């Protein structure tokens, strides 16, 4: 009988004195992350969208610059933008990257509950905050790296296009590097918010809808609703922190960069802490 192999292993595995520690949980979550086809597809889509949008944007910017050369009105508009139109070309797909990677954050956590995987996960590691934090680290770091790498590739792809319109883009310039890093951190933050929503709601559709509501619907709704409160509150929405964070100079009627950083930080920390608290309390 095959059962004979059970006991021979008994001595070996108990003698080794295995136990759970955070690094092992991190390893487990990383294995989980890279062994799902859907994750790979979403990551590939993000890279594709980032590069594709940058190429489109490079072409569009070139057209605009050409028009500006002949049209004084367009030239005035260009000057109003600070003169350097090409600098934001590599990160022009960021709105879509945040949507996809935010949804990925939601899915990676909500699918634990919808598939029943959570019972295996939390039986193996009963201190539930450990798998949560490990997953959070995997999701955030992966989102950061993917966004950073896609942004750089997007920049490389845009260069020849911009060049054909006689536009200059220096990927090594301070502002280029700042844009790349800040945008990547921002996308990682969105993924972390998504993961917290997935953990709190334990439902994929609900989590993604909440995320879309927070990042895409709320800014528009707050703009449409009259009243000073909504006008002010709008600045504090997580999706509206990215512009102040990447601006060369402070734009009036927006948050200062440090304020935006704090607001975005709060938008990450509050859901994460709440999700961990609820995860500890609720039955799996």
């Amino acid at each position: 009988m095959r059962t004979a192999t059970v006991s021979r292993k008994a001595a070996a595995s108990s003698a080794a004195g295995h136990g759970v520690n955070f690094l092992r949980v991190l390893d487990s979550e990383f294995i989980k992350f890279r062994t799902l086809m859907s994750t790979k597809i979403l990551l590939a889509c993000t890279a594709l969208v980032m590069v594709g949008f940058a190429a489109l944007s490079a072409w569009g910017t070139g057209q605009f610059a050409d028009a500006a050369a002949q049209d004084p009105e367009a030239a005035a508009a260009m000057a109003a933008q600070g003169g350097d139109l090409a600098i934001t070309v590599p990160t022009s797909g960021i709105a879509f990257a945040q949507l996809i990677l935010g949804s990925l954050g939601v899915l990676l956590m909500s699918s634990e509950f919808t598939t029943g995987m959570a019972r295996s996960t939390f039986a193996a590691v009963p201190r539930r905050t450990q798998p949560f934090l490990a997953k959070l680290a995997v999701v955030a770091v992966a989102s950061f790296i993917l966004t950073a790498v896609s942004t750089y590739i997007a920049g490389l792809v845009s260069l020849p296009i911009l060049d054909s319109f006689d536009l200059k883009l220096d990927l090594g310039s301070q502002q280029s590097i700042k844009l790349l890093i800040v945008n990547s951190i921002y996308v990682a933050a969105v993924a972390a918010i998504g993961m917290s929503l997935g953990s709190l709601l334990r439902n994929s559709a609900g989590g993604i809808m909440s995320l879309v509501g927070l990042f895409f619907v709320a800014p528009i709704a707050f703009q449409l609703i009259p009243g000073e409160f909504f006008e002010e509150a709008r600045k504090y929405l997580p999706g509206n922190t990215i512009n102040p964070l990447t601006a060369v100079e402070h734009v009036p009627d927006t948050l200062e960069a440090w304020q935006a950083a704090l607001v975005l930080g709060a938008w990450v920390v509050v859901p994460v802490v709440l999700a961990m608290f609820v995860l500890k309390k609720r039955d799996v």
Partner: protein
Amino acid sequence: MIEATGLRKVYGEKTAVDGVSFTVQPGKVTGFLGPNGAGKSTTMRMIMGLDRPTAGHVTVNGLPYAKHKAPLHQVGALLDAKAVHTSRSAYNHLRAMAATHGIPKKRIDEVIDMTGLSAVAKKKAGGFSLGMGQRLGIANALLGDPQTLILDEPVNGLDPEGVQWVRNLARYLAREGKTVFISSHLMSEMAQTADHLIVIGRGRIIADTTVDALIESQTRKRTLVRTPDTSRLGVLLAGEGVRVDQNEPETLEVSGIDPRRIAELALEHRVLIYELTPLTSSLEEAYFQLTRDEVEYHSHLESGTGAPGNRGGPAAPGAPGNPALSAPAATMEGTRR
């Protein structure tokens, strides 16, 4: 070793587990038996620290599950055949689980081989049949070579070979000195696998005893008597605590009196008897008897003409008109703990 004390779980209005206390001993297969909705799975989830008890507590190998440093080496559990991400392969699922405890790859291959999953290990778990899902769940439970094994309805969906395999595995592990706790709603399965039985109904423990003792306590000894003169013998036997039923011509089923006394009475009154057979109840009958009042979801067919195979109804399969089943409720109350 699993020790539960006053374990209670309330979901809103409904009390799923109502203050159960029991001990599951090592070196034995302990069956956890009860009708659907009796609280078996909830109790097992509380043991595993997945559900928080409303009251009471439970320890495994001396500690609450969550306090163990290496829980997979202490307890292996199959709680739900589909506690697996449907899009991940069986192998990768086990790999992720093993990683949390630093269990080597060799052990993953071993449990895959042991559970007969080799051919499908690289396939997505979502496409597995119920039986394959169960095997993966059992592989998962065995991964850490745990001291205590908790299996919730492990034979559901398994083919006969698989059922036999689970049975042998459970007995083998118990012989090795491990604690094996298996739930089932099928008494026949438990009769063949378990040494000890904990019977639960509507969240309460209604029996905690050995398989033999359960049959003993839940059945009244019956004797099959064949005689041409059933009416006369019936009158002779009638008396305190004796129950006589006639289901076929020339045949009586007598309970509450032993075969020797029946023979003596027949001899005394010169009634011809040409068969006198002691009948023993099966575990299944004992189980019906025990859980009759505790079944949460009664089938509505049971008030009819005794639909075959109707659990909990008066007409148990294989025992038509079984007098033991219609024994007064008082005998049952006496054996509850």
